[in-house]
């Protein structure tokens, strides 16, 4: 039987080591796998290269990894938010390195990584600071920047419904980066609101085919109090 379900978090995160490159789904808090993020925080993994559109907000969820100094390098499009003073402090202290990429380019780089495309050309950022140090090229009279694909050792994804083959659906706009991150991860770990019987998701409605899911866990909410307070985190 092909069964991606897993009930043991240590087993789910098996192999996640210091220095790992980890892509995390979500836009704002929508589509964010907070249970898995909390487990990653508890695991104590350090020197993470984190791929995520945002840096998180406040001290909970995604931000907790940054505030605890676990992230060595952040690849994102928007590193600002409620705790941007802290992020700025980490960058100035040399604890955190930032690679900021336009949001559409970030999405396309992840899509390319999952799709076996090592590099592509995009008009985004041509003639701006983003193009500095990158190969540029003209096609049919217009300038483009060459961008490289992104893949990750691990992908952490939040889904709405899932079956044991790992087929996934997402609620509303919680879809955002989820299918891209799922495909770009060499090992993709999913937490789903609801695990349904095989066949319960009609084939036309599957958003992420099961082939991308390596581990599937039942999502559990993380109580606010479970996250380190800003003082503890710092």
């Amino acid at each position, binding site marked *: 039987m092909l069964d991606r379900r897993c009930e043991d978090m240590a087993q789910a995160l098996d192999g996640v080591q210091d220095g790992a490159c980890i892509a995390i789904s979500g*836009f*704002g*808090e*929508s*589509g964010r796998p907070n249970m898995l993020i909390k487990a990653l925080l508890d695991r104590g993994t350090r020197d993470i290269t984190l791929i995520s*559109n945002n840096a998180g907000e406040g001290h909970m969820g995604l931000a907790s990894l940054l505030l605890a100094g676990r992230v060595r390098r952040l690849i994102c*499009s*928007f*590193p*600002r938010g409620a705790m*941007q003073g802290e*992020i*700025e402090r980490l*960058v*100035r202290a040399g604890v955190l390195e*930032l690679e*900021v*990429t*336009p*949001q*559409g*380019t*970030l*999405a*396309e780089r*992840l*899509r390319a990584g999952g799709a076996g495309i090592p590099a592509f050309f*995009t*008009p*985004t*950022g*041509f*003639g*701006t*600071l*983003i193009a500095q140090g990158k190969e540029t090229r003209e096609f049919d009279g217009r*300038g483009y920047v060459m961008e490289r694909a992104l893949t990750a050792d691990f992908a952490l994804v939040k889904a709405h419904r899932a079956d044991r083959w790992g087929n996934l659906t997402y*609620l*509303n*706009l*919680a*879809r*955002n*980066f*989820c*299918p*891209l991150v799922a495909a770009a991860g060499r090992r993709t770990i999913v937490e789903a609101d609801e695990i349904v019987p095989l066949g319960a998701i009609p084939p036309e409605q599957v*958003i992420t085919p099961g082939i991308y899911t390596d581990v599937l866990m039942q999502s559990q909410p993380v109580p606010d109090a479970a996250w380190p307070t800003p003082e503890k985190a710092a």
Partner: protein
Amino acid sequence: MSRLGRSAIAARLARDIPEGWHVNLGIGIPELVADHIGAREVVFHSENGILGMGPAAAEGEEDWTLINAGKKPITALKGASFFNHAESFAIVRGGHLDLCVLGAYQVAANGDIANWSRDADDILPAIGGAMDLAAGAQRIWVLMSHTEKSGAPRILERCAYPLTGAGVVSRIYTDLAVIEIGPQGPLVTDMVATESPESLQEKTGAQLRFAPKVATLEDIADR
């Protein structure tokens, strides 16, 4: 009528959006444009994965899986569609949006726009989706105040701030004027009654040309 308020600029811009266009409104002031579309069917895009975005969610009815690019809770209209971020920016970059309305710090006479940072050495450069929108939409219209609070011009021969996109802006709507950016540079088509060509030129850091008939820019805000 001297300077227009933000809502009045948004209303003036909204008047130029025909029914049936697919439009992305940048985060912040451009979002006001949606309030002035009236009965026209315009399909709004938000880069986090929706076409057919409706008004803000009513208080108490927020669903945090249904937010806009500014992370505020929204609603979805009948006819809406959802898609992932790569598909969403394929729409943007592929030139499928009829229009994107952006705010800006500065716009140059050649259509360059600077709207993401006032500092090229910004330690937290926050680009988001602005560069993709600037590069991708069929038309980029900028909605901004004509000058800095200090009076310093924001329409310039060259942007001093780091660019979001090069040569992409086709129209600027300010609190003082509506300006087309064409191959020959900025052309004023509308201007508030309290400005003269000379006084407007004084507030502008790029050489202006004026249409044969400059329309009077008035507050047409419908609310």
